[in-house]
């Protein structure tokens, strides 16, 4: 399968946005760095409020050059805008929101995810980095955890593993895994393939996925428009 990284990421972000597009209740959403940040561009729903763990509820789109405010950043240090009704708070309240179960969903990237719903996204143990961020709090605290991940790495190896090899961020925390080719839900203790992209077959997915999964009896074609 060949797809440029840019198109793959955009497709993943758009598909994740569909999860939130129709809500008529207020939905509080935390977005991680990378693909997750792009999700906000496609949600188009005034009932969705984005929380940034550095202390902001009501994160708007990334700031254009004439909107940049040095003191207004998201958790990835990108300069952002405020939506109407935006509020600021300290880091303890921010993680009280997360740990306390007040955040409805978190979307985060990962190096790997596995068939037990384990997520590895905080460190590659090569001695070059020392940081964890808010991911461990987010995966254990948010009500719904959506993993945005490209299906395979640059060498064509599955990133949906039987067992994660990298250090785990949270065990059994993934609720939904969305790649450029497939949507998996974690249901009844295992992965279930719910959707596949229009250009791939069930056999293609089988070939490119290391993890064991069941195929939903109602497997659908992924909306990639």
């Amino acid at each position, binding site marked *: 399968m060949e797809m440029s990284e840019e198109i793959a990421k955009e497709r993943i972000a758009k598909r994740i946005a569909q999860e939130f597009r129709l809500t008529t209740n207020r939905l509080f959403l935390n977005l991680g760095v990378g693909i997750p940040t792009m999700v906000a561009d496609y949600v188009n729903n005034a009932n969705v409020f984005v929380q*940034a*763990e*550095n*202390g*902001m509820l009501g994160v708007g789109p990334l700031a254009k050059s004439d909107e940049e*405010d*040095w*003191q*207004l*950043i*998201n*958790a990835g*240090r990108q300069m952002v805008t405020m939506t109407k009704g935006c509020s*600021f*708070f*300290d*880091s*303890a309240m*921010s*993680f*009280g929101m*997360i*740990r306390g179960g007040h955040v409805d969903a978190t979307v985060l990237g990962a190096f790997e995810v596995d068939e037990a719903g384990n997520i590895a996204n905080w460190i590659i143990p090569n*001695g*070059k*980095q*020392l*940081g*964890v*961020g*808010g*991911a*461990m*709090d987010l995966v*254990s*605290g948010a009500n719904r955890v959506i993993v945005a991940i490209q299906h395979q790495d640059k060498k064509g190896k599955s990133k949906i593993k039987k067992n994660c090899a990298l*250090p*785990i*961020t*949270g*065990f059994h925390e993934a609720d939904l895994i969305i790649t450029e080719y497939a949507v998996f839900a974690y249901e009844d203790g295992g992965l279930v393939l719910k959707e596949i992209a229009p250009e791939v077959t069930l056999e293609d997915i089988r070939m490119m996925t290391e993890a064991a999964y069941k195929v939903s009896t109602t497997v659908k074609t992924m909306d990639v428009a």
Partner: protein
Amino acid sequence: MKKVIQIMSCEEAIKSIAPHSRVMVGGFGLRGYPEDLVDALAASRIGDLTIISNDLGSPGVGLGKLLTNNQIKGLEGNYYNWNPEVAAAYNEGKIKVNLLPQGTFAEGIRAAGAGIPAFYTLASVGTELAKGKETRTFGDKEYVLEYALPGDVALLKAEKADELGNLVYCKSARNFNPIMAMAAKYVIVEVGEIVAAGELDPECIVTPHMFVDVLVLKGR
């Protein structure tokens, strides 16, 4: 009881920091950290410090200067990927690092300021960061015991203070500053402006002056 608020220079203010102190520093990703106070601390060359902060700036920028100057003995914090010199110094055994999930780090500071010695959280259970830590099961879930993170001195940044030491912040520059104000024995705050008492709307004051000892004016 506390002394009346003192307004002083950065150089004078940081004389209260002794070697081997636990110094809390507000900020997240170079926003909401006290630039002038950190510069003064770097210039002082006071050493063997334990720095309690979310991150350590960038190489040679902000708190990164303290590492470049070999003033740091230990770090307690959350995210040093923005300053790769931290991992390098840690690998060489030059510094100790207590790496904590961001929410655990924030709650540890909050707990220290609120008189709570330790607390349980779900974050990090079963992971490398929970190795050797006590756990306990509540209901059907296992939680990890984490300890309060007190400081000897806090160096903080606020947008504006009144002459009593009440503080207001600016947008996402608030971050860890309000909770660190409660968690350190001696609190020094760098502000952009000091106004007369009564000029700040009482409904908008985020940090009451009870938690503040010294004000420094940025750029003085």
